């Protein structure tokens, strides 16, 4: 497996302009260049906006979010979409840290969510804290929604590369070395070998995740090079539950992989990553779970952190894996958002493991009051609150993009508290 260097360029301000450029931590987005990247028969028009931390701006119905990255003139990011797969790797990836590109607007299977750039929702979404280039779009009259979605996805990936290309010659703010995982059988000096199992949602149109440009549906679990994930081998086309979504950005910045790397060589050995589909049939779920456990054991994992995308179906995949791992003698921890009702008094788990442990990423149903904003992108109404897009609203945490991040990007958790003056 390959080593990788991330060449970090911090983005601290963002504006629209005539030509794309990056200097002194400011990213200028060339509007005509953006329009050219989204030129596709399936899209009638696109509009580009900026939304930065602190703005009184709301983004309605966000779709995928991508971090700008580039490997320079030779290309190489987003293999299967923009770059060839199985190319000779270049080791350096330029990252516009603090920037994100995203599309927003109606799509049939897009469960409506939101991002606020200020207030309590901004604290709860990773994308309330990034400098966002927001793409609004109109579908061409004679195009299907599926065609429009593919055009948007390709456009976002191309835009992400285009923006990061502008920073390739800039002086980096930091250089981060990413060592490959430790191979099975190598000495760990007594440290436990801990890996990540990442379930990818695979439920058909608009609920699919792509690995090297192909749906993961129908695949068996596979050991995967985390450097390839860094370079965009995993791309999302999944628009279910907004708070429980894993946009491309979070695969590029996989939180579990990052945390395992952060402690690699100190109190654990980073053992690797296994990607799995989330099939919809019980027999397939059991097969995938059993196979994933076997793969982890064969790859020498002592423990695994298991993540999912979505809910319901996905909860069962998560819990079957935890059970399969623990039954095989591995230590397993799952990340899970609780569903204990608006007041938090209901049972937190819908499906649960017989053993193992679960980390909470917050309560799906907990209400959050959001103040009014000055401007909204992506729509004029917030349908879940039946309100103007800019209005002060109360929404469940479930509506805030990635607020309950199944990949562990968020800082929400839940604790038990006695209620009703029960101890008074």
């Amino acid at each position, binding site marked *: 497996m390959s080593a990788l260097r991330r060449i970090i360029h911090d983005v601290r301000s963002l504006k629209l302009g005539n030509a794309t450029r990056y200097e002194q931590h400011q990213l200028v987005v060339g509007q005509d260049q953006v329009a050219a990247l989204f030129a596709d028969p399936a899209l009638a028009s696109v509009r580009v906006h900026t939304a930065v931390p602190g703005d009184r701006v709301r983004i309605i119905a966000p779709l995928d979010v991508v971090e700008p990255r580039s490997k320079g003139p030779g290309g190489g990011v987003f293999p299967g979409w923009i770059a060839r797969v199985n190319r000779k790797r270049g080791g350096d990836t330029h990252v516009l840290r603090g920037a994100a590109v995203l599309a927003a607007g109606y799509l049939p299977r897009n*469960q409506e969510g939101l991002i606020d750039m200020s207030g309590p929702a901004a604290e709860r979404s990773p994308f309330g804290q990034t400098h966002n280039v927001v793409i609004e779009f109109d579908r061409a009259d004679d195009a299907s929604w599926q065609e429009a979605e593919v055009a948007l996805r390709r456009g976002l990936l191309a835009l992400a590369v285009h923006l990061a290309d502008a920073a390739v010659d800039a002086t980096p703010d930091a250089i981060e070395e990413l060592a490959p995982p430790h191979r099975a059988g190598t000495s760990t000096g007594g440290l436990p070998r801990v890996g990540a199992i990442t379930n990818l949602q695979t439920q058909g149109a608009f*609920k699919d995740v792509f690995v090297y440009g192909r749906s993961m549906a129908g695949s068996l679990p596979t050991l995967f090079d985390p450097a390839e994930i860094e370079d965009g081998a995993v791309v999302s086309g999944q628009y279910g539950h907004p708070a429980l979504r894993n946009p491309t950005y979070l695969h590029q910045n996989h*939180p579990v992989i990052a945390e395992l790397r952060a402690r690699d060589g100190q109190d654990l050995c980073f053992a690797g990553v296994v990607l799995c589909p989330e099939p919809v049939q019980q027999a397939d779920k059991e097969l995938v779970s059993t196979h994933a456990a076997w793969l982890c054991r064969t790859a020498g994992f002592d423990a695994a952190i298991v993540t999912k995308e979505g809910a319901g179906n996905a909860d069962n995949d998560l819990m079957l894996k935890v059970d399969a791992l623990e039954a095989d003698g591995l230590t397993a*921890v799952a990340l899970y958002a609780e569903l204990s009702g608006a007041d938090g008094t209901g049972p937190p788990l819908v499906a649960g493991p017989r053993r193992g442990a679960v980390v909470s990423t917050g309560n799906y149903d907990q209400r959050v009051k959001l103040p009014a904003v000055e401007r909204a992108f992506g729509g004029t109404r917030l349908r879940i609150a039946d309100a103007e897009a800019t209005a002060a609203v109360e929404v469940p945490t479930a509506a805030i993009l990635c607020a309950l991040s199944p990949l*562990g990007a968020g800082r929400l958790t839940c604790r038990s508290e006695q209620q009703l003056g029960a101890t008074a």
Partner: protein
Amino acid sequence: MRIVHYVNQFYAGLGGEEAAGSGPRVLDGTVGPGRLLAQLLGDAHQIVATIVCGDDYAASTDAAAAELLEMTRDAGAELLVAGPAFGSGRYGLACARLVAAAQAAGLPALAAMHPDNPGLTEAGAAPVVAAGATSRQMRPTLQTVAAAIEKLATGATLTVADGRVARAARTGRLVEQRAAARAVELVLRRLAGERDLTEVPIGGFDVVAPSAPVEAAASATIALVTEGAVVPAGNPDRLESARATRWLRYPIEGIDSLASGEWESVDGGFATTAANADPNRVLPLDAARTLEREGTIGRLHNEFLVTVGNGTPVATARRFGVEWAAELRKAGVQAAILTAT
């Protein structure tokens, strides 16, 4: 204190399931478990009347709690005591709704049920004390209830020490470490020997024992129910596409098949294209009508019940289940086909 006691048809001796549809009525003095409760209370407090209602009626009639509360007031109650409902869902729901209505109207009220009873979340601001899972725990449960009544009579508030069911809320909050870092921490601590550590308690799932098969399907009334969010096109009653707070009913009398364009699924949890091309594939009305014509089933119930099963909290889903069971029993349905998506 003048106490009015609420019990269901079974504990009032009116009958079992066959009497579950009976409406509210008032009986003088004590009935069933009220007799033992009166003994335990001694002379300080009197059970002046017992209010009775069938479980199906109480759990499936919107106005039931208001009707029962009015009777309670007319009987001159200073305190309303409901149950114990033990683990019984419909009875628990009825007790919880009644004490919630009473407490909200300013009449002190107390219910007793098992902490896992699906009705618990409906008790509002009224205190609930823990009952055993079944009536085999009648005596110790009524001892708890009697002691709670003594305490309420002094004007004090019940606490967990009195057997009050503390609804432990799991409250969301932002913490310093993100979830991925906490997961690594938890893995390392578990590897180091703290095997039982977890942020979310695991286990505690219901196991539902299936009912016996329908004896004679050819003479049975069968209902179709679904959590697949099938509604008339345009969704006139605004069923949610996720996080349902309610369920709906639609008549199917005289309809042989759900026509595309007239019915649709508004479920936000799956791709509805195929469902909307043929809504019968989510709610199999066409097939059920065929079975009805062929005489394989006796009769199809004249309406279907529907909600959306997408991100529904377990507590809400359990309540819907109890309400549907009561609804279908009241309507004389012997079996239901529940389609899930």
